[in-house]
């Protein structure tokens, strides 16, 4: 997570993509591991919250807003989706969309599988919603 914030600040998109993939793989390894510990599953919860909500919807949104000049956020997103803008900021937006459109075993970021493992390991349902 620290790497993701670091590369977002530097706006190094190549390293940022790699850092996101690394964190994602760490998360998948935890929820796929039948022998994972309760500590592991809480770590997976943190990653899920970070990748699924906090990073794309708060941090990345702010990062785009801070670098955007001459148009509103909404106009920027619309223009990118229509293919009218192609720059570093639009590539960053595409990376974020990659996270938001990611499914694993049929649910967004594998949340269904995560919930199953969480319940099994902790004996309770996740207390707080992802969004």
């Amino acid at each position: 997570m620290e790497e993701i914030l670091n590369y977002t600040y530097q706006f190094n998109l190549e390293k940022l993509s790699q850092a996101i993939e690394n964190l994602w793989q760490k998360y998948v390894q935890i929820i796929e591991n039948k022998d994972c510990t309760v500590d592991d599953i809480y770590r997976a919860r943190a990653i899920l919250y970070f990748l699924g909500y906090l990073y794309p919807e708060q941090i990345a949104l702010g990062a785009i807003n801070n670098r955007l000049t001459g148009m509103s956020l909404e106009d920027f997103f619309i223009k990118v989706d229509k293919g009218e803008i192609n720059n570093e900021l639009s590539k960053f937006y595409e990376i974020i969309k990659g996270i938001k459109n990611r499914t694993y075993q049929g649910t967004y970021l594998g949340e269904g599988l995560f919930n199953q493992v969480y319940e099994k390991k902790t004996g309770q349902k996740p207390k707080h919603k992802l969004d």
Partner: protein
Amino acid sequence: MGSRRPPRFVYRGERVAFSPSDCVIITIRRGFLIKFMKKRVFVIKKRMWQDEDLIGFETDDILVVKNTTPDAQIILSRTAGLITEINNLLCHAAIISRESGVPLLMGQVGITNQLNTGDMIEVDFDKKIWKKF
């Protein structure tokens, strides 16, 4: 799933006689169609929902949900409009709405408790208002 009923499109400013139900007024704003419509709603009250929660959904219903996720992409192509409780320009519903042109009204906190499947609503996606009738 019901059969798609072709909407009646009426351009803003055009003088036409139409029944109050099932009309669609189109305006062009920022390159997308922004619509006012009167439609039946299909409400999902759960946060995490799946295909089995869509039994009874009719093509051209307005889908009312807390949020959407990528696994809901197919149904979003068959909905007349989308209303969500969540409100964020980078949430999945906002992304898919921009990409597909599905009219979206976000940030309607509590709407999944206020409406039930089958209710009829008027919604102005441009002015971001809705009411039950």
